[in-house]
């Protein structure tokens, strides 16, 4: 599924940049300014993962405290 999306994106990049001189780069992709949308999406996904990690750590903190109270 993700691979299909990536393939579609990659072919879009190639299509939009086909009139370039020299090696093709995603120039049009960048000119449109929409690259910021993609970067924001990536950043949000990464931050969501970090938030989940922090949540896991808090849960661990709680469990550790419970165990320490029990053993005393």
């Amino acid at each position, binding site marked *: 599924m993700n691979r299909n999306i990536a393939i579609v994106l990659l072919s879009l990049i190639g299509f939009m940049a086909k009139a370039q001189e020299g090696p*093709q780069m995603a120039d049009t992709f960048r000119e449109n300014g929409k690259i910021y949308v993609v970067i924001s999406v990536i*950043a949000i996904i*990464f931050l969501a993962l970090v938030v989940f990690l922090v949540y896991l750590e808090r849960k*661990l903190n709680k469990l550790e405290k419970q165990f320490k109270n029990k053993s005393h």
Partner: protein
Amino acid sequence: MIKKHWYKITAVLLILYTLVWGLLNRVPRLDILNETIRNVYYHVPIWFAMLFMMTVSMIHSIQSLSKNSVKHDTKAYNAAVVGFFFSIPGLTTGSFWAKYTWGTWWTFQDPKLNGVAISILIYLAYFILRASIDDELKKARIAAVYNIFAYVMMNVFIMILPRLTDSLHPGNGGNPAFSKYDLNDAMRFVFYPAVIGWVLMSYWLFQIKNRISELNELYHE
């Protein structure tokens, strides 16, 4: 609070910076590679994190043997699990990148790919070996000895052999890695922070795994 969590905050900030600036900065215009050269910021640091975790694992195995400690063996196992976890996206992204640049998902001509595949099997064998022994002390000792062996083999397969023969990977086949031909200065400003960020991130995951094992031990006492 900052004292205990500084490395996690650094990891998140560095990775976030590389995610954003890695897509925006200027990269060399090269044929075949085109924009995929940016994968250097994401694919390569994952492998650095994997190598770092395997090194941590090996050090804990040595400590486990010299101090006769089961705790160090558990840590060695946890580090190897985190390292193994990083090798899967490393392999998948590498294969995907290869499809669009080298034209194939997998090539048996590249010693690095095969070396990585063998290393993954070596570590799989480590997990199976460790899980198959019931006696705690025996398990710790045998697992530690095998783990040190596994680390050496992994280095032979992915660091040494690819440098002795021809490889499609840059920095192999006799060339020093990351020479001026592979990375320009602008790319270094993203690549090195990415390596540090992902190494610290792997250490964070390692710590979480350790705390889970400690809780597990407390529970079974």
